[in-house]
């Protein structure tokens, strides 16, 4: 799952409800795609909540290319 390492970091530093919400279909190169990440800081006394999107693959990246090949 592209972006899973970064999502793991978001979880490691303490965010809950952390998720790679979606891929955007935006490609800045043939090798990269836009992604939207989310997390929340726990409230005092709140228990960390695991949500499905932490464990399940996010939707597959879209196929269309939005820009010319190259680096980011």
């Amino acid at each position, binding site marked *: 799952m592209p972006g899973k390492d970064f999502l793991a970091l978001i979880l490691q530093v303490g965010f809950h409800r952390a998720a790679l919400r979606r891929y955007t279909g935006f490609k800045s190169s043939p090798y990269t795609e836009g992604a939207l*990440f989310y997390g929340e800081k726990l409230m005092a006394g709140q228990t960390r909540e695991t949500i499905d999107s932490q464990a399940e693959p996010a939707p597959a990246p879209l196929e269309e290319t939005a820009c010319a090949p190259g680096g980011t």
Partner: protein
Amino acid sequence: MTDPEIRQVREGIQGKYDRVAAAGPVGSFIYPTGKAGMELQGYPPEVLRDFPPEVLADFCGVGHPFSLGPLNPGDAVLDLGCGAGVDSLVAGRLVGPGGRVAGLDVTPAMIRRARANQARLGLANVTFQVGKAEALPFPDHDFDVVVSNGVFNLTLDKKKALREAHRVLKPGGRLMLADMVLVAALPPDQAGKVENWFQ
């Protein structure tokens, strides 16, 4: 990564964004920037209608982080790696005069450009300052929302920067990031190249 490579990455990123600050994003990115980039990312039509063209022209984000959730009137927002400040100014509009937005960027020239854009819009609830995502110049529990747009892929110590974002958020605060992820392996002749960081 070796120390000289880290230095080369930092200098390369700084050099690229010094050029962007001097001449705008056109020609420095291989993806749509400016108003076209904002339209592509799905920014609201009222932002595209109400913001001056000179401000819109400075957008070089890779997504629409505000699509992850609402900014509420009165919220305190940190825009990490704010560049020329377009997202900070969008946030400033959304949180209203009772809210506040801090834009932070490592490149002094981009902060000067952000302040010029702020002057064009006359938003008093937005401030800009130079600083690093890995060492945020803000107290603990200071913000309701941290947003960022295409910055973490340029951040050398991502975990440290995320820790800092977590530290400055209030309990219950939200992290809303747009960025790029690798979806295919780089060809062998490009993998590991320092220049990938700032091309």
